[in-house]
C-alpha cells in the first residue's frame, strides 16, 4: 500500500491532527521524523490515496502541515 506523510510540528498538534482526521474517516499513524538537516518533527502517515482529503481536512481545521516527500513509498 502506498503511503504519504505530512509533518505538522510538535507531538501535541500531531495528536490533534490525527484525531481530527479520524473523526473525518481518515486513518493516520502518528510518527516522528528525524532529520539531521531539518531537525525532528512529528507528523502523520496516511494512505497516499487519502493525502489530498487529509490535507483539505487539516486546512479546514487550521492545522499547518507540509508534505514529507522522502516518505512516499
Amino acid at each position, binding site marked *: 500500500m502506498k503511503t504519504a506523510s505530512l509533518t505538522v510540528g*510538535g507531538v501535541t*498538534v500531531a495528536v490533534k491532527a490525527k484525531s481530527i482526521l479520524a473523526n473525518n474517516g481518515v486513518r493516520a499513524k502518528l510518527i516522528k521524523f528525524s532529520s539531521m538537516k531539518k531537525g525532528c518533527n512529528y507528523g502523520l502517515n496516511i494512505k497516499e490515496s487519502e493525502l489530498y482529503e487529509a490535507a483539505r481536512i487539516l486546512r479546514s481545521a487550521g492545522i499547518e502541515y507540509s508534505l514529507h516527500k522522502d516518505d512516499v513509498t
Partner: protein
Amino acid sequence: MIYFDNSATSFPKPRSVLRAVSKYTARLAGNAGRSGHTLSIKSAEILYRARESVARHILFDKPERVVFTQNATYALNMAIKGLITEPCHVITSNMEHNSVLRPLISLKEKGVSFSVFDASLSPDISIPPLIRPDTKFIVCTAVSNVNGAEIDIYKLSKVAMENGLGLILDLSQLLGHREIDASRLHFSALCAPGHKGLMGLMGAGFAVFSDTCSPTPILEGGSGYDSLNEGMPSQLPERIEAGTLSAPAIVGMAKGIEYIEKCGTECVGRHLAALCNYSTALLSKMPKIKLIGSGNGIVAFNVADIPSATVADFLDKHGICVRGGLHCAPMAHKTLNTLEQGAVRVSYSVFNTLDEVDKIYRLLKNEYK
C-alpha cells in the same frame, strides 16, 4: 486521622486516580513528545486526552492551548512573566497568594507597577478607579486560599474586556467544586493546580492561554522537536513546556477531573457549602472563636488571641490536619488584620463528612472553654 487541609492538597485521592497513575506508570510511561517509538506515541496520546479533559472541564475549545506545569505557582509565573513583558501597570487584589504577589513584585525591576483593589467589593466598583493609561492587565485569584472569599470572575472579565485589559486568573481554590465556562470569560490565562479540587496528585497543574495570547517562554530547554532551532519552537504548548512533563501526575489529574465530573461538580460544591454552613453554625456558639471567613470549602477562624499555629498543633496531636499561620498569603492576612496571629484554616473536600466536622468542634469546645 481527619484531614481538613484540602486547600493545600486534597487527600485522600479517589481510588480511580491511584489506579490510573499506577497503570500508566507500570505499562505506558514512555516520554511523550520525545521519541518515535510506540510507547512514546501512546504516552503523547494519553497526555493529549488529558489536555482535552482540562479543556472540556472549563468549556474551552482548544486543548492545544492547555499548557501543563507542575503546579499553579509555576502556571502563574508562566502566565505573569510570559505575558507581562513590557513596563506597564497591573491591577491585583488585596487577597493574593504569594504565587501572584511575588512574581508581580519581581517584575518591578522591569518597570511593572501594580495597584491593589478591595476584593470585598464588586470588581466593577473597585477596579475602574485604579485603571490608568498604562494599565495592561488584571491578575488575581478567584477565591482566597485564606478565608474562601470569592471574586466574581465574570464581572472581572467584563471589567477587563470593557477596558481592553488582559486577565490572568488564579483558579486554584475554585476548580473542582464550581463549573467554569471559559467561553464566557474574556481572559488571557487561567491557572490552576491539579492536586487540590481536581483530586490529582501533587506535581501537575496547568495554564490555559486564550487565542489572543502568545506567551514568551520563561524556561528554555528540550521541546522534543525542532531541535536545530536555537530558540523554543513556535507552537503551543511545546513552546513553553520545556523539559519532560510530570506525566503520571497529569494522568492522575485527568482521572481526578473525571471523578469530579461523575460526582457532579456543582454537587461537590453543594456538599462543601453544607460543610461550611454547618461549621460556621457550630463556631458561632463558641464565644472564644473569631470567625474570619467561610466559603468555597474553606473556614478560617482564630481562638481568642492564641497563635493559630498553636491551635493547629493541638488539633494535629488529636489526629486532625488543618493549617495555621499565614498560608503563603501575607497580603490577605494584612487585609483581614490577622498578620500577627495568622488563622486556623479548615478546608474540606468531597470526602469530608458532617461527623468529622462535629469532632473538630467538640475538641475545640472542650479545650478552649
